[in-house]
């Protein structure tokens, strides 16, 4: 909402500068989002007096004027306006002024005569469309006065952010009340005098409220014999300064009072109301109304309407009806000032997508006690602006009148909550300035009975009063201390530690951390070729997604990482090594996942550290090391049929019977779906399962004191044999004496026969209790070789 400095000053005295006021309002909780100087467009334009005129020697239509703008010498200005005359007061744009039309005034020679400025028309100043002649100014303004000041256009507009709990601040008087709290100065409310005619209003109209639950108060006045026309400049200027459109004198008057009191009003053309009367009721099924914006609205029975004897004539608290609006031919006006139930207005406005100045205020809660002052104020203005006479009396149906709320306030509680040491007098003064009534209660705890004014519907509890006291006292004046309470002992959470270690490891392995939206496109499951019955396809859907790309919640991180790979590839970045740790969304649970992708080129891409294409064993190595980082050893890898992956280059990771993830090379069709021209390697693991299996308890193991002995062993086996089959036999044969077995070479080629391969291992033998003799090692090694031969048909390769 916008307010202006000058307008506010009509209701309260204060001498803050614009900047200071902005600061104080902000610190009261009314955040000033912008401060704009009006009249800035007229900078350099001043009031001048045409002292004398003589003909231009070289032009018939131009004259030379001597113009006094308050300086030492009068300026010579060349002018061609028809109405220029000696003694006239007119606006002068001085050298350097930039006019709203875009003209910059320069010293110039017009047909050989110097001109030191320009005498201006209203059009040239952007004030109106009148270009017929110079703008004539009143001669009682002193020459040299800036025009903006002379016309009262100089003002400062504050754009305020009013929080939803403070509808009372959606008006000039409301903001003035806040200034009262700050300064203690009293409000200056408009004085209203209405001269009524002899016709009793009850003869002219009636108001019936059929839905008192939705309309606590409805008041009306009737004004006869108005003349619809343009509003005077002061009114237009006020409304324009806060961004409200100009309509006609009646509507402008109601809008002015809306801004003044925060009370929305509506003027009906009295003669367009069926039977000239008002019925406040719920809409009937199937009823329609054409609102002021000429839209036809279908109504439902939960919507409150203002009706005449026959049909709805306004959407209560939201917008008036088109058929009963004020037009040029309107002579009699029924003026409405009412109060509506916030939730109902909110629901209607939301349902119809109509957000108006009126609905904005009613849905937050307007002051039922502002109904009559605003009605009378608008009536007075209408008569002033449009003539006419006011029927005697006011119709005021007020079924929702209630007692003023009283709240008990304990001063000790104020200080207890805030950590302050405010005196009773300070508390009392703050409450008084805010308009609260205060009585000291008779009870022992010296508490107050605080009466809440009707405009503060947001104050219902002691804590709300405490906030008011804090606000006006100033948050900055509340001490800054550290908590005194004990620090609760945290519950250790291994999953936090697991995540931390995994992240450290993955970063250390050269992968960059990605963070993706939790959303994805439903077609992502097809793109990664999930089987039709894969439960991951059962994703949660958004009812109101931003786009199809963001319409489901992801159940796997892999599509996002493939999207990232595609994005990077499309931008010629091909060293893709990314991981992400995030929840995924299953029905009823949000398990954590860690996933990664290697694609394109890894390595430095420089001399001595060339790029290399990642392969299956790079991703396998990452998964193995990741498990190691979690101190997990008893896992198994097994090939799967998951369609996302190359059927021969993938493995599931499991602990016992629990499947905890998968890794491998993306299936060529997946690569195609993501337009990747190179292979991509993926892994995705379940963080919860990793946390369950992780064991960070460590115990020292003695460092071997006896030397170990290494023996290399190359065997020729069937091509299809898995490389870990011999390893199992070596361990089984050597028992505790085999410390480690390392596969260091795999060979297929001329040196071995077709259908065979050679596997070469380094076996480390070691005993914890003695130095192994050569003989002992040789005997054991022979046993290993024999058993490999017997059980696997392995031949020793020489």
């Amino acid at each position: 909402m916008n307010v202006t400095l000058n307008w506010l000053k009509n209701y309260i005295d204060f001498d803050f500068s614009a900047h200071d006021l902005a600061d104080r309002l902000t610190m009261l909780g009314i955040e000033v989002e912008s401060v704009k100087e009006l009249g800035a467009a007229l900078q350099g334009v001043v009031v001048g007096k045409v002292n004398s005129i003589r003909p231009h020697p070289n032009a018939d239509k131009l004259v030379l004027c001597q113009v006094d703008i308050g300086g030492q010498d009068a300026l010579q200005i060349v002018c061609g306006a028809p109405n220029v005359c000696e003694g006239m007061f007119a606006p002068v744009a001085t050298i350097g002024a930039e006019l709203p039309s875009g003209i910059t005034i320069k010293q110039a020679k017009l047909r050989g005569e110097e001109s030191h400025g320009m005498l201006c028309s209203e059009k040239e100043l952007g004030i109106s469309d009148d270009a017929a002649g110079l703008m004539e100014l009143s001669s009682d303004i002193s020459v040299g006065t800036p025009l903006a000041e002379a016309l009262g256009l100089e003002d400062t507009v504050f754009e305020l952010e009013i929080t939803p709990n403070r509808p009372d601040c959606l008006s000039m008087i409301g903001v003035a009340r806040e200034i009262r709290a700050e300064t203690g100065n009293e409000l200056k409310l408009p004085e209203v005098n209405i001269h009524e005619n002899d016709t009793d209003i009850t003869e002219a109209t009636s108001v019936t409220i059929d839905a008192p639950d939705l309309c606590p108060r409805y008041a009306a006045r009737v004004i006869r014999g108005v003349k619809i026309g343009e509003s005077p400049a002061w009114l237009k200027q006020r409304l324009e300064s806060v961004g409200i459109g100009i309509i006609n004198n009646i509507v402008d008057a109601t809008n002015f009072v809306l801004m003044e009191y925060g009370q929305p009003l509506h003027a009906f053309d009295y003669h367009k109301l069926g039977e000239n009367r008002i019925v406040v009721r719920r809409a009937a099924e199937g009823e329609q109304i054409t609102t002021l914006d000429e839209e036809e609205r279908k109504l439902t029975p939960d919507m409150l309407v203002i009706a005449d004897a026959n049909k709805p004539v306004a959407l209560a608290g939201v917008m008036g009806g088109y058929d009963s609006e004020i037009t040029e031919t309107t002579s009699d006006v029924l003026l409405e000032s009412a109060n509506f139930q916030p939730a109902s207005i909110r629901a209607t406005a939301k349902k119809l997508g109509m957000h108006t100045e009126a609905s904005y205020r009613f849905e937050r809660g307007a002051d039922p006690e502002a109904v009559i002052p605003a009605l009378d104020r608008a009536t007075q203005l209408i008569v002033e602006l449009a003539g006419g006479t006011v029927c005697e009396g006011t119709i005021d149906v007020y079924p929702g009148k209630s007692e003023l709320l009283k709240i008990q306030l304990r001063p000790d509680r104020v200080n207890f909550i805030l950590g302050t040491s405010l005196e009773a007098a300070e508390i009392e003064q703050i409450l008084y300035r805010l308009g609260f009534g205060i009585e000291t209660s008779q009870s022992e705890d010296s508490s107050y009975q605080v009466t809440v004014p009707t405009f503060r519907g947001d104050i219902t509890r002691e804590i709300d009063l405490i906030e008011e006291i804090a606000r006006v006292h100033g948050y900055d004046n509340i001490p800054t201390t550290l908590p005194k309470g004990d620090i609760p002992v945290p519950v250790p959470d291994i999953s936090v530690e697991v995540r931390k270690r995994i992240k450290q490891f993955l970063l250390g392995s050269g992968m960059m951390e990605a963070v993706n939206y939790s959303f994805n496109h439903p077609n992502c499951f097809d793109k990664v070729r999930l089987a039709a019955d894969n439960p991951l396809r059962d994703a949660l859907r958004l009812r109101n997604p931003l786009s199809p790309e963001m319409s489901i919640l992801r159940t796997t991180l892999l599509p996002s990482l493939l999207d990232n790979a595609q994005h990077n590839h499309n931008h010629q970045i091909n060293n893709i090594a990314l991981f992400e740790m995030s929840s995924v969304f299953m029905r009823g649970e949000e398990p954590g996942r860690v996933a990664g992708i290697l694609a394109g080129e890894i390595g430095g891409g420089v001399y001595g550290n060339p790029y290399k294409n990642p392969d299956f064993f790079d991703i396998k190595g990452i998964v193995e090391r990741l498990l190691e980082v979690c101190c997990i050893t008893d896992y198994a890898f097994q090939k799967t049929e998951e369609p996302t992956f190359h059927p021969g280059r993938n493995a599931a990771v499991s602990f016992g019977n629990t499947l905890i993830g998968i890794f491998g090379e993306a299936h060529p069709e997946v690569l195609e779906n993501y337009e990747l021209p190179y292979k991509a390697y993926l892994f995705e693991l379940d963080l919860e399962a990793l946390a369950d299996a992780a064991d960070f308890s460590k115990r020292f193991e003695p460092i071997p004191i006896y030397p170990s002995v290494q023996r290399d062993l190359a065997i020729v086996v069937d091509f299809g044999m898995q490389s870990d089959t011999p390893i199992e036999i070596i361990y089984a044969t050597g028992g505790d004496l085999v410390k480690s077995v390392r596969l260091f070479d795999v060979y297929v080629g001329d040196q071995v026969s077709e259908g065979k391969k050679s596997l070469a291992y380094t076996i480390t033998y070691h005993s914890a209790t003695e130095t192994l003799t050569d003989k002992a090692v040789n005997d054991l090694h022979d046993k290993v070789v024999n058993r490999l031969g017997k059980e696997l048909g392995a031949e020793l390769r020489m």
Partner: protein
Amino acid sequence: MKKELEAIQAAALEALKDVKTADVLESLRIEYFGRRGKLTDVMKGMGQLSKEERPLIGKLANEVRASLTEAFEETKNALESKQQEQQLNTEAVDITLPGRKPAYGKAHPVMQTLERIDAIFTQMGFQVVTGPEVETEHYNFDALNTPSDHPARDLHDTFYLTDGNLLRTHTSPVQIRAMENQKPPLRIIVPGKAYRVDYDVSHTPMFHQVEGLLVDRHVTFSELKGVLVSFARQMFGDQTQMRFRPHFFPFTEPSAEADISCTVCRGKGCRSCGHTGWIEILGAGAVDPEVFRAVNYDPEEVTGFAFGMGVERIANLQFRIPDIRTFYENDLRFLQQF
């Protein structure tokens, strides 16, 4: 014989001067010291000397031998160091060739910021807890004193799911879950994702928040200020000023927004802070009694405060990314920068 010895010594020393390689040195050594070497031969003649002469010549011979041995040793050392020098020279590298950098990844900039925030609060005794991102109306709104007809709901443009649940619009529901699960005192922070229907240069539909909650028998608003000022100084530098403005949140009362002095102009006023000198960084307040009632805490028995901040916003105070949607493109040229 004495003459002979002196001649050998002179000849050997002369010969050593010309030695250029270890091989030549070795043959020279053999020429003098070998079994048939010149010096050895002379020594063999010792037996024919008279009893008087023998000690004199013997002494002289030893002296010659020692001095030659030393000369040979020196020559050898000189040759060796020369050879080492030559080898080092040939081993010199072009130090401008690229180093073999071990691979090293970088954490996402939003996560880096989030982890810094976590670390500061953890060190003040706050425990990290998390909660679900798919929430119910109850936890996201109702229990936080925001019933369905409350205008404050307009501030949160909510993503709803077809199953009737919603994506949490803030991390605040975890306050409720934590209080339901624990008895006071509580001192927790809740880092996590939140969602709102918003997509422009300064809004992403998914964003990160860090929520904080402290509940105890007597927690004051002044302590809220203390904790947050301490946070701001650690996060943004010890010169950071902080101001608290009244604001409105349904689940805190009194409520505040907190600003820090602009990190660009240090409070003088510049474009970054809209010429106010201040930058809003978080919302906070004393826990509303209705929230305590929703979790069966007695608001007369306990008080508390809560705060919440947007991580992207704080991250961007440092990084100054013109379009924050860039955070979630995961462009490697972007991620490499942080």
